[in-house]
C-alpha cells in the first residue's frame, strides 16, 4: 500500500487530504516558478557585462504599489489554503454515529488492542470494511503516536489522557500503523497493522478466530465489567443511572450530551470528559452541583476507568 500523492488512498477522507495536497502543490508550484524564474532570469540578464566596469544601474529604491500587491496577494492565497485545510480537518474530526469502536493502548514498544466485547490483540487491529471506525487511544508510559499513512491521519497517544481518531476504511486490505512520537530505543520497531476485512468475513472472524485463546475474564465485555466496577465502587450512592437526581448528576444520557459547567462553559460529555470526571472530579464541576466528589484515581486503575466509561456510554 504505497501512497505517493493521490495513489493508494485507503478512504474517501484520505482522497480529500490528497486533493488538498495537490491544491497546495499547484499554488506552491506557481509561486515557485514565478519567484525562482525571476531570480534566475534577473541574475542572468543583469549580470555585469564588462569585467572592470559596472553596468549603469538605476537608483530604484522601492514601489509602494508592488509592496501593497505582494502583501495582499499572498495574504489572500494563505487564507484560502488555511480555509480548505481547516474544512477537511474538521470533517475528519467530527464523530460519525455508529462507528465501530476499538481501544488502543500504547506502551514501550507495542500496541494493546481491546474491543468493546472483550476481545484483545497485540499490534493487530481488525475492522469491517465500509463502516467507520473510532480508535480510542491512550498510553501507559510515555508519549506514542498512531499514524495510518494510507488514511493520511495520525494522533498522539498521551499518558493520563484519552484521544480519539476516526477513519472510514472503504477498501479491504492490510494497512501499516507507525508510532510517530519518539518513545525510546524501540521506537522504530513499534509497528502494527490495521486489517480491514469484508463485512461477512469480519463477522465470521468475530465468531471464531477472535475468540481463540484468552481467559474467561478477558472475554467479559468492557461495558459489563464497567457496570460491575461502578456498582462496587460506590458510585451509585451519589449518582443515579435511571434518570433521577441524587447528590451528583444523573449518569443516563450523559455521554454525548452538552454539559453545563460552573462558570458558564459548556463541554461535550465525551470519553475524555467522563474519564477526567472519575480521576479528577474537581476539574470540571457540573453547574448546580457541589464539588464534593473524591478522586478515584488511586482506587480505580486506568484500565477499569475505561471499562466504566464504556458502561456509561451504554446508558442512553
Amino acid at each position, binding site marked *: 500500500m*504505497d*501512497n*505517493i500523492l493521490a495513489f493508494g488512498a485507503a478512504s474517501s477522507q484520505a482522497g480529500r*487530504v490528497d486533493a488538498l*495536497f495537490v491544491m*497546495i*502543490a499547484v499554488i*506552491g508550484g506557481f*509561486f*515557485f516558478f514565478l*519567484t*525562482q524564474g525571476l*531570480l534566475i532570469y*534577473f*541574475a542572468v540578464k*543583469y549580470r*555585469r557585462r564588462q569585467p572592470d566596469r*559596472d*553596468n549603469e*544601474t538605476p*537608483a*530604484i529604491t*522601492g514601489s509602494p504599489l508592488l*509592496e501593497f500587491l*505582494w502583501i495582499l496577494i*499572498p*495574504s489572500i492565497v*494563505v487564507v484560502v*489554503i*488555511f480555509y*480548505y*485545510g*481547516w474544512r*477537511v*480537518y474538521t470533517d475528519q474530526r467530527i464523530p460519525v454515529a455508529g462507528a465501530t469502536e476499538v481501544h488502543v493502548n500504547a506502551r514501550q514498544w507495542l500496541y494493546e488492542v481491546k474491543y468493546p466485547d472483550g476481545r484483545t490483540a497485540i499490534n493487530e487491529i481488525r475492522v469491517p470494511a465500509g463502516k467507520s471506525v473510532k480508535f480510542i487511544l491512550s498510553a501507559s*508510559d*510515555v*508519549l506514542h*503516536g498512531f*499514524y495510518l499513512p*494510507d488514511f*493520511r*491521519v*495520525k*494522533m*498522539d497517544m*498521551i*499518558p*493520563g*489522557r484519552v484521544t480519539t481518531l476516526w477513519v472510514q476504511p472503504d477498501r479491504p486490505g492490510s494497512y*501499516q500503523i*507507525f*508510532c*510517530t512520537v*519518539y518513545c*525510546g*530505543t524501540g*521506537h*522504530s*520497531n513499534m509497528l502494527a497493522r490495521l486489517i480491514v476485512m469484508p463485512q461477512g468475513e469480519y463477522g465470521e472472524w468475530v465468531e471464531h478466530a477472535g475468540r481463540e485463546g484468552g481467559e474467561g475474564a478477558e472475554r467479559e465485555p468492557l461495558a459489563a465489567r464497567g457496570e460491575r466496577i461502578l456498582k462496587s465502587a460506590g458510585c451509585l450512592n451519589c449518582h443515579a443511572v435511571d434518570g433521577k437526581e441524587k447528590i451528583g448528576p444523573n449518569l443516563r444520557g450523559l455521554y454525548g450530551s452538552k454539559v453545563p459547567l460552573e462558570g458558564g462553559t459548556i463541554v461535550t460529555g465525551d470519553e475524555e470528559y467522563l474519564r477526567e470526571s472519575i480521576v479528577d472530579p474537581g476539574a470540571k464541576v457540573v453547574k448546580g452541583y457541589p464539588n464534593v466528589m473524591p478522586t478515584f484515581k488511586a482506587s480505580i486503575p486506568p484500565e477499569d476507568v475505561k471499562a466504566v466509561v464504556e458502561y456509561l456510554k451504554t446508558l442512553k
Partner: protein
Amino acid sequence: MTGIGQPETEGNGRGYLAERGWRSWAFTLDHKRVGAMYLWTTIFFFLVGGVFALLLRLELLSPQAKYFGNHAYNVFFTLHGSMMIFLFIIPAIPSGLGNFFIPLQLGARDVAFPRLNIASYWVFAAGFLVVIGSLVAPMDTGWTFYTPYSAKSAAAVTTLSLGIFLLGMSSILTGLNFIVTIHKLRAPGMTWHRMPLFLWSMYATSIIQVIATPVVGVTFLLLAAERVFGVGFFDPSKGGDPVLFQHFFWFYSHPVVYVMILPAMGIVSEVIPVFSRKPIFGYKAIAYSSMAIALGGFLVWGHHMFTSGMSPLANAIFSLMTFFVAVPTAVKVFNWTATLYRGSITFEAPMLYALTFIFLFIVGGLTGPFLGALATNVQLHDTYFVVAHFHYTMMGGTVMGFFAGLHYWFPKMTGRMLNEKVARAAWALIFVGFNVTFFTMFIVGVRGMPRRYAEYLPKFQLENVISTAGSAVLALGILVMCWNLLQGLRKGAPASANPWRALSLEWRAASPPATENFDEVPVVTEWPYGYGTPKA
C-alpha cells in the same frame, strides 16, 4: 558627503589582532575578539554536529540498524539536533558575526557593555562544557526533550538541560547588550532608517532572545525539578500534564527559529545590493517585516502540536496565525528579487551563497503551507517531510546566510582575501549535495516514512541511499570551504579596507579593524544603500 566608501585609515597589518597571548583573548573587552571566539566555537560545534549527521546517514543506508544499533542512532540524532541548534545555529550569527559587526556598522567603538559581552561568552563556554559533560550518559530523547520520556530516561537529561539553561542565559545577555547598543551607540546622524538592514534584523532577533529564552530556561528547571525532586509538573500520575511541557517548549522553540533565520536574512539584505550595485528594494518593508516576524512568531507555537490532542478550535487559530507569519517572509523574498532587477550583478562567493539562500529558502517557504494547513499537517507531521522542510529553511536558509556572511566579511575580519576559485568550487559541491540530501526527504516523507527511525521499511531504502550519497557530497563541499577559510587565514592576499566597494560603515574601518574600530567616530548623512548613483 565626500569620501564615502573610502577607508579613513589603512590597515596596520594586524589591527585588533595585534596583541598576543591567551590572556589577551580570555579577558578581552573587544567586541571583535569576543565575536571571533564565538565564531571559532560555533563552527567547531557545527562540524561536530555534522559528523553526527553523517553517522545518521550512514546508518540509514540499510533498513536494519546494521552499524550502530537503535540506541546509538537515537543518541546521534539527539546530539546532532542539540548541538546544531543550541551550540551552532542560535549563537553563530548573532553572537559571532553580530558581535563583530553590530558596533562596526553602527559606527561605534564597542558594544554598550563590553564586560557583559565577555561574560556572556564565558557563560556560553560553561554551558557547552556542561553539555559535553552530559556525554557520560548521552541523551537519547531528541533535542525536544518531550516528557514523560525525558523525565524517566536514565541518561544525563538533567545535566544537559542545565547546560542549555546556561547557554540560554548567555543568549539573553547578548540580546540585551545588542538592544542597548543599537539604541544608544548609533553614530551621529545614523537614524533608525539609515541603519543597515543587518542591524534591523539583529534588533528583532535580540528582542526574541530576551523575551523567549527565559521561558525555556524555566522549562528546563521544571524538568530538572521533576527528575531530581520528583515534582510532577509533567507527570500525569501526579496530576501533571506531559503536553504542558510541549506548550512551554514550543513557546520558546518556535520564536527561536526566527532567532536562527532573521540574522541570516539580514546578511542577505546586505550582500544582495552590494553585488548588484543597486539600492536595496523596499528598505522599510524589509526592516518592518523583521519586526512583524519577531512579534508574530510568538503566536504560532501550537503548530508543532496539531496532533497532540489540542482542541480543533485552538488548532484552527494556530493554523491561521501560522499562515500570516508567512506573509512578511514572502515580502522579503520579493524585495530581494526586485533588488536584482536592472543591477550589475557579479557572482563572488558571498553573492553565490546569498542567492542560494533565496533559492533554497523559497523551497523551504513553499513547503510550509503543506504543514500549516491542518489536514495535510495531520498527514505529514513527524514524517521526513518535516525534516526536509526545516533543513531547507535552517540549513538552506540560515547556514547559507551564515556562509554568505563569512565570505563577505572574511576580508574585514582577517585582513586577507579568500581564494575565489576554491570558494566557488566548495559552493557548487554544497549546493548539489544539499539538494540531493534533503529534497529526497520530501518524497520519502510524503510516502509516509516517520522521522527518528533507526530502522525503516525496505520500501523507503532507495530515497535513503540517495540522501546519504548527497550528504557525502555536501560534507566534501563543507570540508573544501573550511580548508579554503583556513588557507585564507594563513596566507590569503592582503585585503584592502573595502574590497567589495560597499557603503556601510564597517568598510570604512581598516581590514582588520583597529581595537577601537575608527580613528574618528564617523558622521552619517545618508543611508548605506546609495548604489546605482554616480558616487558608487
